[in-house]
């Protein structure tokens, strides 16, 4: 099963719009949403399957037993994450606590314990035919990389043995969740936006992706909003030897489709026609080109 990951660097370039179109066009039986901080794919790929929810435990959180606390302040002095306040007795800021356990180790009175904490929820939609793995990180949490890994593991574990393609909707940025989503994928499709910000972010996500051994393709969304910048991006691909898989025009019909819970290939619209070509080029790159032709 080949895994295709869709990334962008910058937010709002159209990852989910394109991912949902790809899933529809390929009739992919396996897909996942790795943007665990702000998952959106489930809003377009509506499911009639019963979802299975699993709690996701992040790092444990510290807890101070006020009865045992002697007020020495050693915990606060040694906390590197500013997670302990002493304004009304010693209290843990559950959002700032990273679960390192230093406070528990230094407390002379045994007043601190580390308690398991639910940091989010994984959701798996699966029947004989399809698998859709997604998750939601609880607000204010870290350890999103670990949750992303679990989303992918659930997807892989439940996918049918003969499934050919898995489409993975990624998250913006270049940090932990993006790095976790990059591991083990066969190809990354970068969705670029022709703005100065978009180009700057695109360069950073390309740099991040290059450290992993995967094919890299790039497409430009809303290309006609700035033809000069579109040309800049295409020239950049040529210089860097990146595979350019096509361009999609800005299309108000796309917004309408998504707002109706449909993909852009479920209706007749310019972006829908264009994305079919991008899909075709991307599939060629993913399935037919040899390892040597990647950047």
């Amino acid at each position, binding site marked *: 099963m080949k895994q295709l990951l869709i990334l962008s660097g910058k937010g709002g370039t159209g990852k989910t719009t394109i991912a949902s179109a790809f899933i529809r066009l390929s009739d992919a039986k396996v897909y996942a949403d790795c943007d665990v901080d702000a998952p959106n794919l489930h809003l377009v790929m509506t499911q009639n399957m019963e979802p299975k929810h699993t709690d996701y*435990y*992040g*790092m444990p959180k510290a807890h101070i037993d006020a009865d045992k606390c002697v007020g020495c302040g050693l915990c606060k002095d040694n906390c590197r994450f500013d997670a302990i306040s002493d304004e009304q007795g010693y209290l843990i800021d559950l959002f700032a606590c990273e*679960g390192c356990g230093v406070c528990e180790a230094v407390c002379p009175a045994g007043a601190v314990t580390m308690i398991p904490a639910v940091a989010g929820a994984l959701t798996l939609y699966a029947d004989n035919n399809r698998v859709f793995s997604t998750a939601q990180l609880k607000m204010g949490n870290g*350890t999103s*990389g*670990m949750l992303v*890994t679990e989303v992918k*593991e659930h997807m*892989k574990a439940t996918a049918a043995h003969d499934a050919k393609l898995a489409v993975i909707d990624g998250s913006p940025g270049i940090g*932990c969740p993006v*790095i*976790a989503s*990059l*591991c*083990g994928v066969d190809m990354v499709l970068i969705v670029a936006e022709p703005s100065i910000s978009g180009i700057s972010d695109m360069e950073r996500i390309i740099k991040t992706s290059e*450290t*992993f051994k995967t094919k890299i393709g790039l497409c430009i969304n809303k290309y006609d909003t700035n033809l000069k910048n579109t040309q800049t991006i295409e020239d950049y691909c040529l210089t860097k030897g990146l595979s350019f898989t096509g361009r999609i025009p800005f299309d108000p019909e796309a917004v309408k489709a998504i707002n109706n819970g449909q993909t852009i290939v479920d209706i007749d619209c310019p972006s829908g026609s264009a994305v079919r070509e991008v899909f075709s080029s991307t599939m060629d790159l993913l399935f037919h080109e040899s390892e040597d032709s990647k950047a």
Partner: protein
Amino acid sequence: MKIAMPVNDKNLESDVCQSFGRAPYFLIYNTDTKDSCYIDNGAVASQGGAGIKASQMIADQGVKALLAPRCGENAEEVLKKSDIMIYKTIAGTAQQNINAFIAGQLVLLIDFHPGFHAHGK
């Protein structure tokens, strides 16, 4: 010699687990005495560095070879520094892989993926 393998169940007919760091159990098999035992993988619930912790456990068992379908760079470092050889498993059960190993049919694992919380090379 002792060899280790990540497995899904505590018996030799179990399939090899596709993950190393987050396998539920490790089979520790002695090729000389043909004894086998199973240890719970303490790393399975780890946030990060699961491969590191799993490798530490394997090394502490005095194992000389690990049979696994894949392995991360951090785990590879611990294993290499512990003088543990890493072989790539074939599809099938633990027993089938043990037989293949003894017959010298398994190849060394050479492709190590970057850590899931690490940053590639």
